[in-house]
């Protein structure tokens, strides 16, 4: 398995439990075929790239996902939209394409921002 594939699988573990912080030992239980040091390297790499947040609790290092998979996909889409000539039309279409729940969340977030 390539390092990139393993990084992806490790991230899946974090995205499955988005609110939890996991220690290296806890992550290794999901990958019994891989050595502890390999998983540790992968976690450090992901933290360096900014996909994981590393925290020190006593002598243990714990990791949590910096953002959900959906957040990353949205950021990729928004990056693409920023290059368009007619941003307003595309952003309007983007808003229309969102599920009603997400639209409400966005509208709440924008209102909160504009109140600040």
């Amino acid at each position, binding site marked *: 398995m390539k390092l990139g594939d393993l990084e*992806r699988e490790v991230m899946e573990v974090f995205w499955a439990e988005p609110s939890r912080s996991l220690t290296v030992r806890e992550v290794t239980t999901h990958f019994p075929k891989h050595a502890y040091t390999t998983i540790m390297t992968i976690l450090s790499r992901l933290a360096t790239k900014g996909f994981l947040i590393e925290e020190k609790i006593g002598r243990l290092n714990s990791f949590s996902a910096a953002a959900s998979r959906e957040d990353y996909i949205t950021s990729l889409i928004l990056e693409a*939209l*920023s290059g368009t000539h007619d941003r307003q039309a595309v952003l309007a279409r983007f808003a229309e394409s969102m599920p009603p729940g997400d639209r409400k969340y966005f509208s709440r977030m924008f209102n909160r921002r504009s109140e600040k």
Partner: protein
Amino acid sequence: MTGVSLAIATSVTCLVVAPTLLRSWRRFDTYPRVGLAVWSALVILGWLSAIVLFLRVGLGESRGSLVSGLGSFAARLGDGHPLRGLGFREVVGLSLAFDVLLLMLGSLIRTGVTIAFNRRRHRSLVDLVAGHSDALIDVCVLAHPQPLAYFLPGRGGRVVVTQGAVDVLSSAELEAVVAHERGHHHGRHGAWLISLQALSPFVQFIPLARWAPTTVRMYLEMSADDFARRQVHRSALEGALGKVSLFSAAPLGAMGLTNDFSSRRLERLATSSPYLLDLAVVVAVVSASLSLVWSIVLGHL
């Protein structure tokens, strides 16, 4: 012909006259690779001859090789007095030559680094979050309803489509879009994109600087269309192009399925078939340009 007059003639032709005439010339729509070769030759020859012209004025030599002029300038530089014996006109010429050269190199490096960084970051994110379609195993699929399809150049390259694009296009159209994006990969269009974006902010009042980026981009798209037409049926590609108004732009440094030039691309798809013989014309254009570069630098025809 003297070096100065040859450089003036080439500069004016490549920077002003040829782009003005060729901009609306549709003959290259049939041969986009020839169009690419001609416009690239115009860009290289135009800016090179402008730099050579300024250098010749600066070095005070209207005849003879530019190399020998640069040699004597280097010798003066070695003595610590590079401007010794030069008049106002020569100093202005030299500074203009170095300004243009530094601006272009600086912009090329800055744009290259920015785009490479952006592509790398984008690629690692795509690798992390994208799924893969069973039918198109090497295509990255983003689970999002916004229709989007683009090719991300760089190490290995990535063809990225969203679930929205998969839903909007039929399977034949999707195959055509993927073949088009692979055409960008095959033609190494990513490198063209860097030079286009590096040179586009330059002096917009010069016709070549104003029109070359858009025109070259259009020929890159047509060239990728031709690649796709060799892989899929024309109607599939036409169907996909007919739906591009639903698609958004691509991120910085990527090449996407967008509404740009779609009507012109559809028109040429209906009237022409993919050409392979244009390679001979491309070779002719490139070799003619190289011999002209040689003449400009040496100062004689």
